[in-house]
């Protein structure tokens, strides 16, 4: 492989696929994750985000290097990915949403994923019709394209109707708590800001709350870990749907931080943004072929 810096984006590593996440992203089984890291370790070095940036400052890496990034702050990352990464001497980065971590608000998309597992979508479809939803549309796409606080509240109403209190109390367990994330920090992991509640703040519908969402999460990160984050991670980064003034918003409040985006590209030059490559669930050899093709 060429001497480039690849930031690999995962969400979860676990033997379990939770109904809360099944509809959102692929969960990587631990044996597959281990196989991927074994193959990657033969091709290059594992580096932290800061080491990667440092190599770019020096003109680019001498050999292929990989950083491992996890979005959303899920608890199984610590349980299953951390031990595998320690075997390969890799430290990772994890982005957290403060309201999930502090058990204040549950991820609105995870509620939809759960509803899809219990035949709750028919109620959700009805609830979304006044907002313009039409039969046959993809609920996932409609809710992202037409995001609003009203839409979140309608999802919550259906979710509350379809679930019991015990489930609503225990569901936060899929996200790691500040105490557990602190363990990752102590092991050298970067804790990144993924906004307060994972609303699409990079898109026109919600760019108005960009600052407020990041600052709320930033304040929780400082309270919990005693240090501000260095990377702000854009939720639902859909390159074609980024709001016009997105980077201006970021420049106005992001300070000297970097913005983490999603794109199938290694990081080539030093700028205010870094690209992360979503990793498919596949064997290590297949992953290398995929990365070589980029």
């Amino acid at each position, binding site marked *: 492989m060429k001497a480039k810096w690849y930031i690999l984006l995962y969400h*979860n590593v*676990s*033997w*379990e*696929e*939770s*109904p809360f996440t*099944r*509809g959102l992203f*692929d*969960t*990587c*089984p*631990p*044996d*597959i994750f*281990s196989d991927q890291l074994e193959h990657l370790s033969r091709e290059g070095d594992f580096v932290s985000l800061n080491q990667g940036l440092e190599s770019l400052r020096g003109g680019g890496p001498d050999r292929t290097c990989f950083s491992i990034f996890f979005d959303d702050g899920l608890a199984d990352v610590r349980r299953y990915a951390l031990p595998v990464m320690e*075997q390969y001497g890799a430290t990772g980065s994890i982005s957290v949403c403060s309201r999930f971590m502090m058990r204040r608000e549950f991820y609105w998309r995870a509620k*939809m994923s759960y509803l*899809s*597992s219990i035949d709750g*979508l028919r109620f959700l479809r009805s609830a979304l019709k006044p907002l313009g939803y039409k039969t046959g549309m*993809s*609920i*996932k796409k409609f809710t992202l394209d037409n995001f609003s606080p009203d839409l979140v509240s309608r999802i919550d109403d259906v979710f509350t109707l379809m679930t019991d209190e*015990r489930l609503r109390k225990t569901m936060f367990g899929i996200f790691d708590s500040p105490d557990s994330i602190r363990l990752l920090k102590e092991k050298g992991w970067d804790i990144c800001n993924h906004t307060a509640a994972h609303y699409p703040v990079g898109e026109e519908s919600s760019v108005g709350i960009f600052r407020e969402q990041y600052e709320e999460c930033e304040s929780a990160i400082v309270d919990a870990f005693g240090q501000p984050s260095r990377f702000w991670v854009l939720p639902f980064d859909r390159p074609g749907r980024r709001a016009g003034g997105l980077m201006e918003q970021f420049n106005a409040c992001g300070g000297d931080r970097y913005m983490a985006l999603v794109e199938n590209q290694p990081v080539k030059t030093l700028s205010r943004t870094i690209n992360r490559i979503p990793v498919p*669930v*596949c*064997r290590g050899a297949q992953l290398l072929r995929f990365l070589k093709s980029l």
Partner: protein
Amino acid sequence: MIPKDPLQNKVTLPETEDHSIVIVTMGELRHRRFALRIQQEFGGLVKGWYQIEKPGGASNLIEKIRSRALSDYSAADLRRFYRDNGLRESAKRIISGGSEALSTINELRNRRARQQKAEQDIFKKEVESLKRYAVCSPETVEDPGSDAFLENIRRIDPYFFLSLGGPLYGKKLIETIRGAAINQHAGRAPDYRGSDTVYWTLYHRDLTRLGATVHLMNTGADAGPILKRANPSLCPGDTAEACMARVVALGTELLISCVKDIIDNKTVTVFQQIPGQGMTYTASQLDGRVLRCVARDFKNNWLDNEIERLKGF
């Protein structure tokens, strides 16, 4: 109206300072992973690991052929068939029956080889690294229903009796356990109980019910109150045997978290299984036809398509 989900209630287990554990498994790699993961998590609390020896080799194969041939085509049935249909049709039936029985045996033998390969691919590296946590070696047991085995368990007097892949246990043994006798079942109870339930779930193309269950033991097959249940993460391209291995790995993790919960908090929520709900499968029900149907679906990329379908809404 029968409720969709099992009824839940609380069970309080006795307080103790001694949470000793006995593990009972079979001898495949997935069972060794189960035993070693428990030893990794609970170390010195594990006081014994019993491995049940399954009769194998030629005698087992002959017994399987005999039992399958007899179950499908008893002598009395054949006599009746000969009387009604004559020699030619009877000969045809015997040949087709024999060929089906042999094909089933062959499918089962191939499945075992594929299962072992899938377990090697998924667990081998992990099991090698887990060996350093072993606090005891497996002791072979020929008959877990024997008085000698019961006596051994009484002598150890464990708080937890943790089983994977064993037979049904008698009331005497279950009542001997001071705390909880817990079984890990590679299937989603109550929908799929008994043997080979991963294959039955796949045969019914019921991916949302592909899962592992951890339950308190009673004398029924996977019929005790449920402690935890979940679905496995899968990898596109997985074989049916890889699905089975992943279900077992998940079940082991669920069981470990149940044991931790009980150690920390003696009152746990259980979900009662309602008699008559779901299905219990026996080993002899899994024949070549079922295995061939599952294999055909996997060859046609059913799993990958279904994973994708479930994620899109």
